[in-house]
């Protein structure tokens, strides 16, 4: 397949991805407005960051007056899955792919763009991924900008309803693996329970820990629960393997 055709296919497949982004990035815009971003700033931040949980966490850290170290740690933790994804991508490039293409493709990884890229058989054609992002990223940014603009003039009831769009997306990411993997299920349940017990609306007050910022609690709970899960039930080796055998023909 030539590069131009791959790019056009990417544009085509990017459209449904961008449409799905729209509602979620709109609710991200509502949070960005609380942080004081203008529509253009929100558009640019979203186009360059392209992360739902990551941006949400970043904005929450600004709202919480977190330290820069906390902000970096939370960004790392909420986006750690991208390291897994781009590690998988690194196994799927043909040997002749120059480093700058590898870097640009990895830079564009979101849950959906990674999924569409890795789902194609054979070696990665960077232009396909560029096509996906060329459509999806501006829609992600536009949704954020519209959230900032319209979030303020919309009725409080509508803002309240849209503010759960992002959580809806998080739920849709964590529930399917919980259904198939008992350890993920228990980890998620532990996450719900412990974050409730450490939250502001908790019936308990735990010395020191209850006073920490929301971001720090997220880090601590993630490290503790994920470590426990990794010790109790290590992931079998074949779980994360990617097929590299079919790459030669198309490269």
């Amino acid at each position, binding site marked *: 397949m030539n590069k131009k055709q791959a790019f056009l296919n990417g544009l085509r497949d990017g459209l449904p991805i961008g449409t*799905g982004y729209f509602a979620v990035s709109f609710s991200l815009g509502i949070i960005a407005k609380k*942080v*004081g971003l203008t529509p253009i700033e929100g558009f640019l931040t979203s186009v*360059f*960051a392209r*992360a739902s949980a990551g941006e949400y*966490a*970043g904005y929450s*850290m*600004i709202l919480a*007056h977190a330290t*820069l170290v906390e902000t970096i740690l939370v*960004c790392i933790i*909420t*986006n*750690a*899955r991208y*390291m*897994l994804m*781009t590690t998988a*991508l*690194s*196994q799927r490039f043909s040997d002749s792919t120059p480093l700058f293409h590898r870097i640009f*493709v*990895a*830079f564009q*990884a979101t849950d959906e763009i990674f999924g569409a890229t890795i789902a194609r058989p054979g070696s990665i054609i960077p232009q396909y991924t560029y096509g996906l992002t060329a459509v999806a990223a501006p829609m992600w940014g536009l949704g954020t900008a519209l959230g900032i603009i319209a979030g303020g003039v919309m009725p409080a009831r*509508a803002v*309240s*309803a*849209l*503010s*759960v*769009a992002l*959580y*809806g*997306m*998080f*739920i*849709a990411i*964590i529930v399917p693996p*919980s259904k198939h993997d008992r*350890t993920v299920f228990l*980890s*998620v*349940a*532990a*996450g*719900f329970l412990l*974050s*409730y017990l450490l*939250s502001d*609306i908790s019936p308990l007050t735990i010395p020191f820990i209850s006073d920490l910022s929301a971001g720090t609690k*997220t880090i601590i709970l*993630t490290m503790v*629960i*994920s470590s426990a899960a*990794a*010790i109790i*039930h290590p992931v079998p080796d074949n779980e994360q393997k990617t097929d590299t055998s079919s790459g030669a023909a198309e490269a």
Partner: protein
Amino acid sequence: MMNKYVYLAIMIVTIGLIRVLPVTLIRKQIKNKFIKSFLYYVPYVTLAVMTFPAIVEATSSPIAGAVSLVCGIVAAWFGLGLFPVSVICCAVVFILEFFV
């Protein structure tokens, strides 16, 4: 309070580096079983911790938030994707807040 642009720049650079580092540094699959397993569980645990109880605190009525969480879980359990689950959660809050 620190300038918001400092936060935004740090956020964009950190998220970008996380994506790019593996393809520049790691040329082979990670061998360490604990790190692999830990990284496997991290995204789900983080999202769970960030979702609850935050979803209950985000809505005007905590009850609407709680019901929307349950509906979202049920919808995702039965195989609906990111977009439909999101829409269902929003619709539940919108409708319930007429009554509570």
